[in-house]
């Protein structure tokens, strides 16, 4: 009988061996794959166990984790709607957006630079505390920009042109991110659905993502850059100046805004064409330059490039494969040219910084939980889209547009402001998109700015960039310059 007992013992050993193997496979081998399964809510709960770091502006938290006494250890708290476009939200079942997503590894302490902190936490038995992310945003400027935009839909981006640091980024309408960080999944979902269905699309950061805008006349800065860089034009170059210009191969005529003659003579200089923002001369300049030169210039400014600040920025587009008529339209920012406000601010910033474009950036410092600096981004060059001499010539032209041109609402008493307005047409009958971009002071720029106002600022096709967008930009620039 002992022989049989031995065999039964072997069977028992095999049964347990299979249990050892199955546990090893589940817990040792496939643990990572299991935690990646969408249905595994533990992954979500886990993300709430870490005390996420703060997002700081001017030393004050605009997003922070506070203790919570439910299944989740912490709850995310946000201050005010004016930062929601930047912070995004950290929600239970609707994911995370904005910096909450883009800087997630720092905020949760999972970045490689936080390795020793994690080791320390492992041995001390304390839970990992995430790092804090300090922004380049100046809270005073942010508030001015937020207030200046008032009830209008649109965005403001202000950059320090010498460093690329973003000092204000506003998108309206905003939203209260606290509505999405609630721990009741039913409530969070209801709030999310409501915000998602809101006609004003508050969840979109208009400054860098969303449906891109037609730039209208602010794109003339890119065409002017290409014209001066090509060597074919100087600011004084004479351009034919008819009342109407028939687009080649079509029966369509281009007219200037206001349907008048630009400057009243039979020819007009490039500088005056920009000053008075005339479409007829720019259509001709565009066709003469050709779409390739314009496309290359646009690309140097950042069009079509992937950019993270570290928020993802939707690439702006300059179309390819156009005929001459379409090229002519594109030269004053119509046809299929589409931009983000940040892209337009980058064009101004490059001109302001003597032709060198600094990479836009939102983060000034990442601090560990014991306040040691983990990462301090240094200003880096993004590209050199134009020469210094071209930049200087363009600066003069833009100063002319503000001081004695159609962008005169950008004027600040005692400061030389360089600027350019835009009033972009959309679909037939649809309200215009209103723009202002520029920088100040022109001789030593401290701020480059882009302002966009959607839906004609509520004035349909009567809204103008100079009347609605320029005053907003002026207020923000004044705030930066303490004027």
């Amino acid at each position, binding site marked *: 009988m002992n022989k049989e007992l031995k065999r*039964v013992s072997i069977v028992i050993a095999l049964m347990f061996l*299979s249990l050892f193997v199955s546990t090893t496979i589940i*817990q040792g081998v496939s*643990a990572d794959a299991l*935690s990646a399964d969408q249905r595994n809510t*533990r992954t979500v709960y886990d993300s709430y166990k870490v005390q996420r770091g703060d997002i700081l502006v001017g030393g004050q938290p605009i997003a922070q984790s506070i203790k919570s006494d439910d299944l989740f250890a912490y709850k995310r708290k946000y201050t005010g709607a004016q930062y929601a476009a930047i912070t995004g939200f950290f929600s239970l079942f609707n994911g995370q957006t904005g910096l909450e997503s883009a800087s997630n590894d720092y905020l949760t302490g999972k970045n490689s630079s936080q390795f020793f902190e994690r080791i320390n936490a492992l041995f001390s038995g304390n839970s990992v505390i995430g790092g804090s992310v300090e922004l380049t945003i100046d809270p005073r400027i942010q508030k001015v920009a937020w207030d200046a935009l008032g009830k209008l839909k649109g965005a403001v981006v202000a950059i320090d042109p010498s460093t690329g640091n973003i000092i204000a980024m506003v998108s309206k309408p905003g939203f209260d991110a606290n509505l999405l960080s609630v721990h009741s999944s039913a409530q969070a979902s209801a709030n999310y659905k409501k915000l998602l269905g809101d006609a004003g699309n508050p969840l979109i950061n208009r400054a860098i993502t969303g449906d891109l805008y037609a730039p209208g006349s602010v794109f003339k800065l890119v065409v002017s850059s290409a014209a001066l860089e090509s060597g074919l034009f100087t600011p004084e170059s004479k351009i034919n100046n008819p009342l109407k210009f028939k687009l080649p191969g079509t029966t369509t005529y281009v007219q200037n805004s206001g349907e008048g003659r630009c400057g009243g003579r039979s020819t007009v200089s490039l500088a005056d064409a920009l000053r008075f923002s005339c479409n007829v001369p720019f259509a001709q300049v565009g066709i003469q330059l050709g779409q390739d030169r314009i496309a290359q210039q646009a690309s140097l400014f950042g069009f079509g490039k992937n950019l993270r600040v570290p928020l993802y920025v939707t690439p702006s587009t300059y179309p390819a494969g156009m005929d001459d008529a379409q090229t002519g339209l594109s030269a004053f920012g119509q046809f299929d040219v589409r931009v983000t406000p940040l892209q337009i601010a980058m064009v101004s910033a490059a001109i302001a910084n003597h032709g060198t474009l600094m990479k836009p950036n939102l983060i000034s410092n990442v601090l560990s939980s014991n306040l040691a600096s983990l990462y301090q981004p240094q200003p880096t060059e993004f590209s050199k889209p134009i020469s210094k001499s071209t930049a200087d010539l363009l600066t003069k032209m833009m100063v002319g547009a503000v001081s004695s041109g159609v962008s005169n609402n950008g004027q600040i008493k005692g400061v030389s402001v360089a600027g350019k307005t835009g009033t972009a047409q959309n679909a037939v009958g649809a309200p215009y998109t209103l723009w202002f971009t520029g920088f100040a002071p022109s001789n030593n720029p401290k701020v480059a700015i882009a302002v966009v106002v959607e839906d004609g600022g509520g004035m349909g096709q009567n809204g103008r960039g100079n009347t609605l967008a320029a005053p907003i930009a002026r207020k923000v620039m004044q705030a930066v310059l303490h004027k």
Partner: protein
Amino acid sequence: MSAVNNQVSAMTSPRIRRVVPRSRNIEGALLLFVAGINAFELAQIQLSAIQILRSDFWLYWLPLAFASLVVHMILRRKASEADSLLLPIGVFLNGLGIAEIYRLDLAKQAAQATDLFAVKQVIWTIVALAAAAAVIWFVKSHLALRRYVFIAMVVGVVLLISPMLPVIGRNINGAQLWIGIGPLTFQPGELAKIALVVFFAGYLVSRSDSLAVVGRKVFGVHIPRARELGPILGIWLLSLLVLVLQRDLGTSLLYFGLFLVMIYVATGRAVYVVTGLSMFIAGALVAGRFMSYVAGRFDAWLNPFDQARYDAVGGSYQLVQGIFGLGHGGIFGTGLGGGLPQLVPLAESDFIITSLGEELGMVGLFAVLICYVLLISRGMRISFTHQDDFSKLLAVGFSFVIALQCFIVIGGVTRVVPLTGLTTPLLAAGGSSLLANWIIIGLLLRISDSGNKRGEA
């Protein structure tokens, strides 16, 4: 030191039995150690879940520690040569189970749920250890059980079919495994294990010669005579009855597997195992065709992550949640009180293994598995030490029934076999299971005592 004492006492008065055998001192030391571990588990859980040590700590620790000490003292008097590992291992697993059940209670209380189990488990622990003590105290020799073989059969069958009876039968979570009187429910199938082991052992000992007799030889295989197949057919039918009427594949497999192993050990004829397994598989396959429950369990086993299976009522949701829990624990676990085992339905009973696996990790589950291996190997060792067939069969039956139950339930939650509703011996919440398993340990202790004494003689 005790060894020296023993020698002295043995030399001076050779006819007096050793008063303090070494195995009892080892057992005592191990019990202290285990009580320490159990206290540590509970402390960690309270500190992790409520950040303080609360006075109700004693409620979950003291009864088991005290009851195990009582059993230890009884063993010293009544079965001084009994195996020294069985009791400490049983107490360790029982204590770990109470700790994890208490931990799940704390999570439920935080969520305002009221289906708490820890206090019940402590009460049942006292009852179960008292039953084990009674077995050791009153059963002078396990050989006396031979006189009750046919009573055991009747009791076993009645216990097995009692949940199917009207009025007292209860259906819980789709399985007809319980009997209930008022608010009290009991799973008689667990106690039936004991009765059936006694019955199988007695029956097989008396019939092993005729069962082993060579019948006709077909294709080189000895076929038992037709009349010897009668009892096998009877057990097979009973198992299928359990499967069909109680809707429980696990219990059915447990009894039938137990019977096959015991008949194999008794006769040494593998043909019984082959025939029996074929019959069981054929029966289960036929049942699977007509019972969506069995087919569903197989589907959920093979493709648990399939979304349709996952969403289906009675599908793989629970299994997958348990596997997520195990994966969440990883190699070292989240620490007791640090995981989220409460996300799995029935985390305190059928899925106690995934709860522990999440919080103690693979390393902790290995420790639990090794405890079972030790417990079962001690039982098998008892079987080897005895000379008479009845004792051998009893010991192997009790050991194997624990082993098979572990395999079915732990294999079920880790996808070795289809998931069925059995409890993890000694760990899981459930009074009937705790009572039955402690009685089994009591009987094994009793059998080992006589085996060890015989060995010395």
